[in-house]
């Protein structure tokens, strides 16, 4: 048994770790040591990728590419393949993943199990919208092939299913054409939420990627930086060398605290305001700004941190976001990596997929114990009132009632659970 933490570093409980490095060994390995849980890169923030006291089946070494059709862009991979490796390999060949989240250091299996989304949700939906087929191994020995038109119930349960329906072993993905690794970008400061929504709505037709950083400290919160981008063709323009750094140590207290928060937010806002305007960016820093700072999660100190990501419908969405910002500013807690984005008007594939039409706000909070939880209770009430929900991949603490209210297809999902699989999150929110 060895201690394992998720990305939020809130716990380090003992797990039995078993590597599934070879596809041919997978069914045999998952038949024993229950309850188990597939674990990729451990980039989920809370307990959805943990199984304290149980087994973790680590899939990151099972990362082979199985087939690629250069005419159709269909790529078949083992579940441990990293999005980063697919992007780096395929972009020079004119193809890319249609959807990637804010880090590319995640596995394909994890991207499916959390039905991750990116900056182009309004254009391409979530990751699961581009999965053509997947191979799901059940701990009882059954192997199920499923896709949008084949065993569609299993597919809808597994996409966004948090690894609880079985172990994803392989997936066939539909890539899309890309002109290369470059984007034409535009950075626009905005003064308040009305300006944000106007920019966001006005950008969706012309811009493939939109996202914004929001200052949730200054003046009650609401100003921010809106970023948008479109892929462009620059021929063989040389790519910048990767500059990788590692957070050298874990500070004894969170580097994000009441002394630094105001300064961080203010500096970030003004730095970007000065640099506002049009530019050309490489896709890696544009999409994955923190990937080159390894272990950035250590900056929150030894107690770790929470992410709080909600989505609320557009009707009443502006008011709900404003209410959350006001509550945060009033609480004295604060967030630095705060992201505000509108989702497109489309229903997700998975029964437990997070994205839905509306506006999503993602916030990070250093773990300050009771005071942080008190703030979360206030935010929960706003989300629930607005008819919204929280993102399980980011969650370590939501109340079961909020989960049940936010995910109306939960009871349907439960019929697809694998009895040999359990996670910290499933025990907390589903009872087993």
């Amino acid at each position, binding site marked *: *048994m060895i*201690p394992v933490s998720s990305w939020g570093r809130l716990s380090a409980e003992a797990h039995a*770790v*078993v590597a599934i*490095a070879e596809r041919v060994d997978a069914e045999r390995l998952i038949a024993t040591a229950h309850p188990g849980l597939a674990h990729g890169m451990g980039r989920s923030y809370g307990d959805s990728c943990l199984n304290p006291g149980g087994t973790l089946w680590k899939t990151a070494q099972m990362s*082979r590419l199985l*087939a690629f059709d250069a005419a159709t862009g269909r790529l078949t991979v083992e579940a441990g393949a990293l999005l980063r490796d697919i992007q780096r*390999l395929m972009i020079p060949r004119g193809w890319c993943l249609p959807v990637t989240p804010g880090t590319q250091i995640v596995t394909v299996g994890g991207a499916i199990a959390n039905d991750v989304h990116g900056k182009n949700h309004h254009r391409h939906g979530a990751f699961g919208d581009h999965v053509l087929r997947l191979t799901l191994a059940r701990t009882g020995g059954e192997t199920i092939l499923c896709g949008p038109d084949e065993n569609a119930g299993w597919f809808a349960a597994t996409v966004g299913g948090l690894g609880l329906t079985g172990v994803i072993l392989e997936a066939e993905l539909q890539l899309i054409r890309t002109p290369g690794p470059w984007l034409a970008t535009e950075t626009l400061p905005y003064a308040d939420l009305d300006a944000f929504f106007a920019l966001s709505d006005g950008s969706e037709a012309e811009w493939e990627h939109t996202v914004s950083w929001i200052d949730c400290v200054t003046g009650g919160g609401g100003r921010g930086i809106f970023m948008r981008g479109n892929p462009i063709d620059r021929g063989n323009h040389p790519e910048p060398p990767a500059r990788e750094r590692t957070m050298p140590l874990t500070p004894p207290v969170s580097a994000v605290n009441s002394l630094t928060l105001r300064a961080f937010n203010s500096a970030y806002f003004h730095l970007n305001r000065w640099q506002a305007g049009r530019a050309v960016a490489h896709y890696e820093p544009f999409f994955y700004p923190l990937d080159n700072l390894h272990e950035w999660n250590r900056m929150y100190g030894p107690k770790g941190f929470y992410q709080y990501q909600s989505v609320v419908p557009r009707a009443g969405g502006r008011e709900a976001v404003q209410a959350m910002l006001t509550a945060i500013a009033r609480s004295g807690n604060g967030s630095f990596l705060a992201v505000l984005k509108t989702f497109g008007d489309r229903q997700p594939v998975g029964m437990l997929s997070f994205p839905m039409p509306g506006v999503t706000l993602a916030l990070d909070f250093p773990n300050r114990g009771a005071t942080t939880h008190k703030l979360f209770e206030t935010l929960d009430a706003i989300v629930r009132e607005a008819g919204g929900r929280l993102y399980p991949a980011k969650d370590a603490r939501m109340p079961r009632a909020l989960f049940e209210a936010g995910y109306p297809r939960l009871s349907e999902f439960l019929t697809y659970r694998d009895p040999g699989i359990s996670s910290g999150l499933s025990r907390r929110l589903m009872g087993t």
Partner: protein
Amino acid sequence: MDKKTSIVIVGATSAMAEHCARLWAANTAVDLTLIGRNAEKMERIATDLRVRSPASDIRQVVADFLDPAAIRSAIDAVAARGVIDMALIAHGSLPDQKACEADLALAREALEVNAVSPVLFAEAIAGHMARSEHGTLGIIGSVAGDRGRRSNYVYGAAKGLVTRYAQGLQHRFAGKGVKVVLIKPGPTETPMTASLGMKGLAPVEDVAKAIVAGMASGASVVYAPLKWALIMMIIRHLPRFVFNRMNI
């Protein structure tokens, strides 16, 4: 068009070897021969490499790793196809030290797999490189071969043999156009070490990068990651009365 670089990997199903192959095939088309024991695992690795590098030629050879005649004929067959530019000998298995102490058959197996077999492969390849006066031969040793320690001295002894062998080969080829690179990885995150819960394991991708860079430069000894050069220098020079008190 230039001839593709011809690369041979012995023990091709090891995690380090697989990641080296990915790096070699990443940017250019190569002519790659994989030699391994398990045909099924090798097939999946070869398929992966073909997807990553459609312009490369990738071949698999299944061989017995302990039979000198089989080793000789496998390498002769590869060499008959053309001059070998690079070869990496990567196989090995981490034995349970306590089990080796109790069961001499296990100890013998560990010594054969980690010392005798790599040396026989290296010797077979070295013969062809000597004739062509060309090539880089990489052999994966281990930091464990630098000083015998109670926690794994059977493995350490095997890797120590590989170290001394590589040294001799470097002496033989000095000034002759053939480079011999001894790679000494520290504890690495592989399926072999996943369940041990050891702290500070190096990612296998990083170790592979160091191997590929070390073989490109032709350095005689490559510690991967580099910090192990310093750590092992200290361990090698610790006086016995200090060393004997350490539980390593």
